[in-house]
């Protein structure tokens, strides 16, 4: 509304955020947990004078840096890029509110980067104490960056007292902050053990080293799983009611919730019976399976964390269709097309006949030829619905959702958008706009499948 809308056919542009974000978190958590792995384990190897383990850790550090410093860091920038493109209003809000949180996070990135390069680059050339200190500085700086970004992302799910006082600290220490910090710390520990297993199983033959790694990394993994569970429970307990309701209302989310429990349980059991109780089991296949289950659980979790926010992007502040909650009454009165910078400009350029000076005369919308009404209905769809729905095909496409619906039913849905489904925003336009959006939806609604009995005409006794 404030900004132009980016139309990505079939996928919808916000789904790109989910895609990039999942790619990123799978590496970013390793960037934190792997830091602790390297710090703890290199200290252990120094203490036990285990040169073979130290050599392995150096090789692991190389893999770690190549993955986290390049892919991890750039996909992180990539999320920032994508949210600005596909969800500009909430992004602007987050930046305005938390610019100094981000700037502080950036300082920790610089510390991380420097510590990582020194730790790996001068491996074996530094006094042991200094080398260990560098490892620990890396780990804590990385964890601090996790804490900082968690405050900002958790804010979206539940801004807490910020809604009243607009204070940075209220927003940062929101109700979801601690649960998510605990869960993400656990995620970092668990995921990094899975990376370690995969790496050691693929690069090292069977033998003492592999058993050692397997055994040492089982505890942090199990601890991680416990933290994820605790954090997850806190997350659930402190969710806004609407978010908890989404989980039981939307079929997809319910299935995904089940999936995440099953996947987490599988990972836990595999870890317990495998590395923890029976060191020596770790084969590339076993490690690969663990890893796949782990990232599947993780991706699902991230997806749910995003999905339960509907209809909001920032709870009680920004709706999924890129408007502020407080704008709704004005938009319903003066019009959705009128309220958007780009929609108003579009109408003014294409349909000067409906303009009354600089603003749109809503009554005149219905005097336009039908094809133009449909066109403007499509504009409404782009700016009011495309955040969550593709058009005729693709992600939650409305064409199939409206299969067989009558015009009256469609119009009723539009005018009472949030009644049947609280996870949709309320209708934010005038009655005239509801009319033209309905006309557009009618053109893309699929017909009732042919051949179904009893046919419409046979419903009543002759």
């Amino acid at each position, binding site marked *: 509304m*404030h*900004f*132009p*809308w*980016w*139309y990505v056919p079939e996928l919808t*542009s916000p789904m790109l955020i989910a895609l*990039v974000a999942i790619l990123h978190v799978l590496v970013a958590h390793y960037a934190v947990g792997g830091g602790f792995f390297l710090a703890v384990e290199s200290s252990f190897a120094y203490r036990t004078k285990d040169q073979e383990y130290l050599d392995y850790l150096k090789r692991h550090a190389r893999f770690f*840096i*190549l993955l986290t410093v*390049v*892919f991890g*860091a*750039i*996909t992180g*920038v990539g999320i*920032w*890029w994508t949210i*600005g*493109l596909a969800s*500009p*209003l909430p992004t*602007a*809000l987050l*930046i*305005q*509110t938390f*610019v*100094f*949180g*981000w*700037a*502080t996070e950036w*300082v*920790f*990135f*610089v*510390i991380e980067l*420097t510590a990582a*390069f*020194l730790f790996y*680059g*001068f491996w074996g050339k*530094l006094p042991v104490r*200094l080398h260990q200190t560098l490892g620990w*500085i890396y780990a804590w700086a990385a964890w601090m960056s996790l804490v900082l970004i968690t405050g900002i992302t958790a804010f979206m799910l539940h801004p807490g007292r910020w809604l009243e006082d607009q204070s*940075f*600290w209220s927003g940062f220490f929101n109700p979801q902050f601690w649960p998510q910090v605990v869960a993400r710390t656990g995620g970092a520990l668990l995921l990094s053990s899975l990376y370690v297993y995969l790496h050691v199983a693929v690069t090292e033959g069977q033998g003492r080293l592999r058993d050692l790694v397997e055994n040492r990394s089982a505890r942090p993994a199990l601890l991680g799983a416990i933290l994820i569970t605790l954090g997850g429970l806190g997350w659930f307990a402190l969710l806004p009611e609407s978010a908890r309701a989404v989980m039981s209302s939307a079929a997809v989310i319910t299935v995904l919730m089940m999936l995440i429990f099953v996947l987490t349980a599988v990972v836990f059991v595999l870890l317990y019976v495998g590395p923890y109780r029976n060191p020596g089991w770790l084969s590339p296949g076993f490690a690969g399976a663990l890893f796949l289950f782990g990232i599947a659980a993780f991706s699902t979790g991230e997806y749910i964390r995003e999905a339960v926010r509907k209809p909001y992007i920032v709870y009680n502040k920004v709706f999924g269709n890129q408007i*502020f909650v407080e704008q709704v009454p004005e938009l319903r009165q003066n019009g959705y097309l009128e309220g958007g*910078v*780009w*929609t*108003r*400009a579009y109408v*003014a*350029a294409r349909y000067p006949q409906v303009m009354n000076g600089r603003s749109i005369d809503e009554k005149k919308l219905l005097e336009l030829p039908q094809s133009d009404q449909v*066109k403007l209905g*499509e504009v409404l769809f*782009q700016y009011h619905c*495309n955040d969550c729905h593709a058009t005729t095909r693709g992600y939650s496409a409305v064409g199939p959702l409206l299969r067989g619906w009558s015009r009256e039913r469609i119009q009723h849905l539009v005018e009472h958008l949030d009644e049947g489904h609280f996870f949709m925003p309320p209708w934010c336009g005038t009655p005239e706009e509801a009319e033209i959006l309905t006309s557009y939806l009618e053109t893309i609604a699929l017909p009732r499948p042919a051949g179904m009995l009893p046919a419409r005409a046979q419903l009543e006794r002759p």
Partner: protein
Amino acid sequence: MMDPQSLVNTQYPNQLPAPFWFIEFFKVLGFALHAFPMSLWYAGILLAMGMSASGHPLARRASWRLMRQMPLMVAYGVNLGIVPLLFVQVGYAAVFYPATILMAWFWLGIIVLLIPAYYGVYLYGADQRQTDEPVSGWRMAAGVVSGIFFVVIGFLFANGFSLMTNLGAWSSLWQQQEVAGATLGLALNTSDPTLWSRWLMMFGLAITTTAAWLAIDGGLFGRGEPEAYRLWVGRFAVLLYLVGVAVFGAFGLWYSLAGWSVEVQTRMWYSGWVVLTVLTALSPIGVLALLGALVLRGKPLGPWEASAIGLAQFIVLLLNAASRQLVQNLELSAHFQPWQMPVALQVGPLGMFLAAFVLGAVVVGWMIFQTVRSLGKVAPGEP
């Protein structure tokens, strides 16, 4: 033709979390800091490939040194790029988001190209041989592809930032690739004459920075290299700098004569700001003179000389960043005046950032100092 003003959203954001000068300061300083390493991959990688292909053993050695340092440069350069981008989004949201959304796929393309370009740099530098021998074909290919990707990335950035101030083009770019008022994100600002001149001007500037860096590296980190190399690299840096100045001068002139509107020209040439304009234009010549004088002594550069060149080149980049900021504000002023937004100062968070900044500087300084001290020699600067 739409009135460009009608596409500017002034409803939100409508206030700043810190005074405008503060945002501007970090934006300009951050960009100048970013521009140093950025120049090395922008112009440096392709130059290094050429130097390696030339067969000249000393050129090969210089190329090898530069490419060994490149992963670090990319890491810190990207990291430093976060600062100006963060502050541009704070102060210039109303123009930043529309411009990048109109070219969304290309803007996202920056990330898509950056990942392989960055890995290409690692791949190229993974070669442990410390020789002047030619690199293998596939390694060369990785370097060339990376270099080209980085140049394309520069082009996309130039598109985004020129479109940010080219409000007059928004409506036609929007309408050329629009679906019911939504953009397909496929616009490029190629019809804007300032795009080409500023992209190439920046390339010229990047050549000068690469030249300066080769000299700095020879005097600071390359003191273990043979004397013949250190003498050669100084002379080569002067020549390369000269080429850079020529490119920068030619495209800079084109940019400021053909690209600037009458208002911008009036302010940049015919007001007190002319001092800044002239300094920006002439400062590279100053560095060239300094470099030339130091090299002409016939001795290899030492750490002090190298540091002086580094500082001087940083001033060049800083002047450039400051002038560009001024021009950007002038170009926008007809439609958008962020400096007039009210300020709702976030005292505590600002304090947190400044405290973290100082702490970070101390920790980073401590780590480097301890490492260098315990190595007993200057860090060779390689991961």
